[in-house]
Every structure is written in C-alpha cells, then in structure tokens.
C-alpha cells in the first residue's frame, strides 16, 4: 500500500482486500449468491479455475470465455491443518479439494470452521465469500470458502 492510499484510510474504517483479483463474484444485492469465476475453452468445453490464458489441451489463443462456476460441490479430500501458514492463515484451519459436478472441475479451497468432525470426503458443500486472514496492515483479506450444505430432512 502506498503513502497516498494509507493516508486516505486514516481514521476511517478498515476496508477489505481480496486474496487475488478476479477469482469470484461477491454479491452486493440481497438474495444474490456468490460464485467463483473460471473460464472455459470454446473448443473442448473444459473449464478452468483460476482462469487460464489459453487452453492447455487445444493450444489456441482467443477461445477462452469466462464462466460462473456452480456454487455446489462434493468434497474429494480434506484435511485440518494445525500450523499457521506462511501466507498468514491462523491455525487450525481446514482445506481440501472440492469437485464441482456441474462444471466437471476440481477446485482447491478453504473450508469454514475447523472441527475435525465437520468435513469428510463425499460431503456436499456450498461456496461462501468470507474473510480468510488479516494482512500485515491489519486489513481483512477476503477469499472464498466452502461450508457444509445443511441437511434438510
């Protein structure tokens, strides 16, 4: 953060930064749901997250198109980490791979909560946008996480 933007913040509320630009759509309107933004190859229809410059299978430029990924996935594998990450995430925290059947893609992501019993392979999860850490300037960093889908029976 440069001096000008530091000054602009003085005495004001903290504002949030995102972990990486262009990863997700954050809902501003009530009722709207968040989603991850990936892209797809118009030749082979394969989807990518995060977005790629070109499709590694078709090797063509200019044939990639942004897509909203489906919000629901199934945990492929998960773990609970008990050490803080060098990138600044406080222990304990849970993460893993989530398969998104609609888009035939597997994504890496953090999970909400940090209970050993909360997550297991095969579990249905949904996307949420949440703070994942606090950066060196004390600002919240917004990322995405997966949380268990409530069982409704």
């Amino acid at each position, binding site marked *: 953060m440069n001096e000008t933007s530091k000054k602009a913040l003085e005495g004001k509320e903290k504002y949030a930064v995102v*972990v990486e630009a262009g990863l997700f759509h954050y809902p501003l309107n009530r009722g709207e749901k968040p989603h991850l933004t990936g892209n797809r190859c118009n030749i082979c229809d394969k989807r990518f997250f995060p977005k790629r410059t070109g499709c590694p299978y078709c090797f063509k430029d200019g044939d990639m198109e942004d897509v909203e990924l489906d919000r629901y996935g199934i945990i492929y594998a998960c773990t609970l980490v008990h050490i803080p990450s*060098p990138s600044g995430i406080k222990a304990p925290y849970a993460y893993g791979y989530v398969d998104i059947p609609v888009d035939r893609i597997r994504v890496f992501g953090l999970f909400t909560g940090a209970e050993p019993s909360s997550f297991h392979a095969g579990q249905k999860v949904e996307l949420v946008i949440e703070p994942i850490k606090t950066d060196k300037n004390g600002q919240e960093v917004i990322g995405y996480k997966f949380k268990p889908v409530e069982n409704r029976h």
Partner: protein
Amino acid sequence: MRDVYLGGVGMTVFGKHLARRLRDLGREACLKAIEESRIHPKEIQAGYCANALGSAIQGETGVGQNVLWELGINKIPIINIENACASGSTALREGWMAIAGGFYDVVLVVGVEKAVMPKGTMLNVGAAELETKLGDVFPGYFALTAKKHMEVYGTTKEQLAQVSVKNHANGILNSYAQFRKEFTVEDVLNSPMIADPITLYSCCPNSDGAAAVILCSEKKAKELSLIPVKVAASVLTTGCYENGADITGWEVEKLAAKEAYDMASLGPEDLNVVEVHDAFTICEIIHYEDLGLCKSGEGGRFIEKGATDLGGLIPVNPSGGLLSKGHPVAASGIAQVVEIVWHLRGQAGKRQVENARIGLAQIMGGGKEGDTKACTVHILVKVQNTITLDCKDNI
C-alpha cells in the same frame, strides 16, 4: 550414447550447520568425492551444482562457482540447477547427459542446501500461487493424499507411522543422519498433529548439508580404483497437471519408473536396494506402488509385513530416508545416489544390504496443481564384483 560410471562419492553429515556456508558444505562433499576418486580437481571438466533455496534464504546465487572455487576449480563450465526437491537428481541427470553425450569424461555433480530457517522466519516459496495464498502447506497437501489413500485402500495410520519407525531405525545405523533416535508407532502417532493425519514425526526435517558424486566415462572409470557402478537409467519428467486426477498415486512417477525400467532393461523385481523421497510417511507408501514394488493400494500392507525393512524383500531407505537422515533440499537427490553406491560397493556398514547389485533412487518435488513439477528415477548397477579393494565402511 556412452555408458556413464560413478567415480567417488561423498556427503556431509546432514543436520544443522549454522556456522558453515553453502560453499563450505559443498566443498566438504566434493572433496570426499574427489579424494575417493583419487583424481586431481583439475581433471574435472564440468561442474553441475544443485541448490534450491540459496537465493531466497542466504541471498546467494551462482552457488556452484562458489563451491568449486573453494576446491581451486576454475575455467570450466559450471551450471547451477534448480528443480525443487529434485534439484540434485536433475543436476545428476544433466551431468549424466554431458558424459553420455560424449562431451566430457569427468564431471562433478554436487547438491548443497542450508534449509534450516533462521528462528522465527518461514519460507514462503510459491508465494505467487493461489493455493499458497489460500493456506496450502506441504504437510497439508500430503495429508490430502494420505486421507484419500486411507479412504480408497484402507491404509491405516499405524501403517503410515511404520514408515517413520522403519526409517528412524535405519538412521540409527547411519552416522550421516540428522535424527538417530528410535521411534515406536505410538511415538509417531502421539507426536503433535500437523495436518490430519500427518503428525510431526511423519514429516522430514529441514536440514543443512551437501552431497557430491563424480561421474565418468567408461575409459576414465577403468583408471579409478573403485568397484564399477554404472548409471543404467536416468529419467526426469514433469507433472501431468490433469485436473480431477486420482491423488492416491502419481501418474508422473509411474511414467518415470516405466521409462527407467525400459532404459535399464530391468524391472522392479530385479532391484536389491531402493531410496525414495519420504518427505512425509504417506509418500514412501505411494512410491512403493508407483515404482511397482507392490500393487496399487497395497503399500500400507507392504510395509506392515516388513517387506521394505533391512533384511526384508526389498529394503527401502536403508539410509534412514529423508525422515531420519534429513532433507537439505537440493542435496537429497544426490545423497540417495551416494547411499545406493555405498550398498553396491559393499561400503554401507551395519546397514549394508547383502549382495546388492542393482539399486534405484527416486525423488520428486515442486507442488503445482496437485501434481509435482519434477520427478526423477535413477537406476544404478554394479557391473562386476571381481576387483577386491580397500573399501572403507560408511557407517
């Protein structure tokens, strides 16, 4: 393509060497390899140096030139190589190509690392990757692999722990090892949890150290008073990066192993001694499977029945592996080959695998999209055993 032989080999003790520089550690390992070869440093025609973290941790680049000039070696090509945990073995392969391709007759390959981090600091390699920003850490990535292997194949946490128990038992017999302490399955399971199911004693340590080998042509090898050991296969391959791939094994490792066996005209059943990349306990179990030592999914039961113990069906990591010997990143791949050479030459002391004639070393590194950036497999073969020499034990 010409045959390539091992000349002298050497390594430093692995561990904490706070007061020693990269060049000091590298020098010691090289000096041992040179002295065992009984050659003059000036006979070395090219140098390959592996170092992965010097630029990030010590602010030092061009490490190869710094190490070799400590030995008075100048005016030759020196190449610095990085390929994460496979840095050393990648340098070895480049050195092998330089001789196999007919460019040189004597090449020095050295791997050196000071990976013990200054107190209170954490290495943030791969900081640009999304996974890293989201908190991915090495033990966590391998924890996912372990969880899946347990789920799919019924591998148990006790079987995982047995890898650490075996390797620490081997390490007690190796004076070069960082941790020479016996562990029980309970010790491993009760050590602090790092990333479920990976506990502290399921992880290799960060270490400082160096390892070096002299490679030479057949003609030059005949001049050396050493039991001839030949490089029968040298393979390097990068990952597949296939989204949605099965994570209970590494396709890239299976590919590398197949290519190596084909190159050597050998199969897993021919091996007498194996060193694999046991950065975490689960890794060794999967390597058994990927290298064809046992069937897919059988790795846990394979260690449980003692197949990979010293004296077992196929001893794996007699050196103590990374878990006990330590893991100075860019040195590890070369140290594995040093260990194999000692076994093939009958110099491995109390941990000697009897009548070892064929050995394999495997290492891989650099996480990317749930895959690995570099995987190497080397197969070494003792060519004959008719020369009797004054080989001193390396215990």
